[in-house]
């Protein structure tokens, strides 16, 4: 049975959808027949094809850099170290850190700072708010840890400056090692230190 010949507009629409790979098998047959020896149809098809190519060859602009995040992990690294990321997010961060040397270095520095903070001696406060006694470990007293954290921030800042200035001979760092230590930490007391003290606070 002879097919109905599509009018000019319907024919153009078929050609357009053909170029985009959006035809049904039946429509594909119609297009094949239309393009079989019909000079006018072939010319129309080619003209449409060139228009489509000119659109697709439009240059792609870069997004201004200030509109996008820099692609690194930022504060998620600290949450990662503290075991505060849920499973999917944790995997995503792990994948990124494996591939991104910038974030790996930042994670390493954060980890050292974190260890340094956690190994600071705790401070007991009195009812009047004075700080008379330096305790041996912070983890027995939650309030004491908070105070130690405050002091630790300053110490960590100094420590980070030391890392940047000193550079060079830092201990080797691997994600496996980090992961093992943090699994161990999670099962231990908060603030528990796995590495030898000399390594945790090794200043350059």
């Amino acid at each position, binding site marked *: 049975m002879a097919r109905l010949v599509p009018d000019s507009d319907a024919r*153009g*629409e078929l050609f357009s*959808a053909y170029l985009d790979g*959006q035809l049904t098998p039946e429509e594909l047959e119609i297009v094949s027949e239309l393009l079989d020896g019909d000079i006018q149809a072939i010319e129309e098809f080619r003209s449409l094809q*060139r228009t489509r190519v*000119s659109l697709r060859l*439009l*240059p792609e*602009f870069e997004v201004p850099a200030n509109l996008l995040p820099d692609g690194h992990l930022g504060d998620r690294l600290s949450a990662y170290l503290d075991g505060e990321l849920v499973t999917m997010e944790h995997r995503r961060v792990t994948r990124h850190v494996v591939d991104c040397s910038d974030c790996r270095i930042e994670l390493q520095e954060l980890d050292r700072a974190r260890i340094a903070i956690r190994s600071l001696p705790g401070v007991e406060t009195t009812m009047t708010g004075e700080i008379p006694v330096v305790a041996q470990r912070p983890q027995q007293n939650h309030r004491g840890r908070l105070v130690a954290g405050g002091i630790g921030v300053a110490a960590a800042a100094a420590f980070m400056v030391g890392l940047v200035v000193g550079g060079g001979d830092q201990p080797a760092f691997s994600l496996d090692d980090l992961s093992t230590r943090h699994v161990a930490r999670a099962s231990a007391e908060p603030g528990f230190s796995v590495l030898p003290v000399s390594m945790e606070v090794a200043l350059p």
Partner: protein
Amino acid sequence: MTNDFTPTWEDVAQRYGRKIYNFAYRLTGNPDDAADLVQEVLLRVRKGLDSYQPGSFEGWLWRITRNAFLDGIRRKQRRPESALPEGDHHSLGSSPSPDEVLASVRLSDDVQSSLLKLSYDYREAVVLCDVVGLTYDEIAEATDVPVGTVRSRIHRGRKQLRELLTWPV
């Protein structure tokens, strides 16, 4: 992006920021409007990701993008600014980046200025198909019209564009 995967805001920004920017740029011909749209879309995505139900992420994202774009146009219509002539806006506003300079070759300028002369529905369909690279189904979902309408709009848009272009096609 798979259907059961919900990306983070940063993932969306990194993966789609450029496409969103180019979508807006080609619809408006204006880098400032394109930058505004990227910011607005990323803001909406950030707010919306909490309530996003895993499904067609592309459809969801481009619906947000389109709505943000149309809202921007409506806002401008309510508070008209000094109108820019249609066509090439490269010489106006912020200084051109190397990419923009590259884009100022005659051919792409001609295509861009012709695009801006299409009616919005045709321009949107053509840009989503040929610039962003969505399928007809994805465009239908993003624009909330049947696939047949998408197909017709793309064809008519291209046909008008062919007639508008000053170089022989």
